[in-house]
């Protein structure tokens, strides 16, 4: 695998598509630390995060051929699929505890809003299953983000505090809008507006930095 070690993630994906297990191992070495960091922030235990990590790489093994043929970014595919794997596990945990009449002991600071639906599969998960690649950015788009990553990370840190706090709960804890409102003790409408302002802040600056500034801002 000396040759594969020098390959990019997309080149490794092409090899995985041809059932090269060693290439998947190299891809894992490149991307698993970043994915596990994200999953560990979302899930209540390291062991759950590691299980989710395994699941997403196993799914990649099954879908690599299509992803490679369609020219989608494997890095972006892994990040979004890892997120939805974690969100599904959180939902299942909630459902199991709700049925058992238990508080979510594994998530000690997390409260669940009244009337929240505990469907085992999220709507996002269902969308990704039905439309598996329509959302996947091109490798060159992700390369542009990677090339300006340091500046983009500074921009994320410059986000006004209320927006940053709400977005952190969505990104790193997997909270929904309603859960964020409950966590912060804020009205739902205010949280929704804050989250949308956070996204607008990020979108406009990302477009400016990576050179895809759109006319419809």
């Amino acid at each position, binding site marked *: 695998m000396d040759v594969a070690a020098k390959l990019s993630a997309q080149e490794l994906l092409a090899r995985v598509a041809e059932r090269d*297990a060693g290439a*998947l*191992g190299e891809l*894992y*070495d490149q991307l*698993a*630390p*970043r994915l*596990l*960091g*994200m999953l*560990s*922030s979302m899930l209540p235990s390291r062991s759950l*995060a*590691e299980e989710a*990590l*395994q699941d997403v*790489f*196993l799914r990649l093994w099954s879908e690599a051929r299509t992803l490679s043929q369609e020219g989608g*970014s494997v890095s*972006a595919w892994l*990040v*979004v699929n890892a*997120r*939805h794997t974690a*969100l599904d596990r959180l939902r299942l945990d909630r459902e199991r505890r709700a049925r058992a009449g238990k508080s979510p002991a594994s998530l000690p600071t997390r409260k669940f809003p009244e009337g929240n*639906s505990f*469907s085992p599969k*999220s*709507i*996002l998960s*269902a*969308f990704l299953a*039905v*439309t598996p690649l*329509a*959302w*996947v*950015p091109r490798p060159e*788009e992700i390369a542009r*983000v990677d090339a300006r990553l340091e500046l*983009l*990370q500074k921009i*994320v840190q410059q986000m006004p505090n209320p927006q940053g706090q709400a977005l952190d709960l*969505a*990104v*790193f804890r*997997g909270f*929904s*809008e*309603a859960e*964020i409102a409950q966590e912060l003790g804020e009205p739902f409408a205010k949280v929704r507006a804050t*989250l*949308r302002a956070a*996204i607008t802040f*990020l*979108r406009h600056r*990302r477009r400016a930095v*990576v050179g*895809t500034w759109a006319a419809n801002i």
Partner: protein
Amino acid sequence: MGCQHLEDLHELFLLGALSDATAAELRDHLERHCAFCLERIREAAQTVYLLSLTTKTARPNPKLKLLLLRRLRKKP
């Protein structure tokens, strides 16, 4: 119905942060292959990717990689 009211939702949809009703509305719209919204969801995925990179990395136990490789050799 147009889709202007969905304009600010694509990133939150991919983050899994929308309420079920709102997420379902956007999902249904995307499944009708709206070209504008499909382009927007691809753009939103770039922002979700960027946000994911602001976490600290965590090195997996080396045994996990061996387990993964064993498991995938059993898959078709």
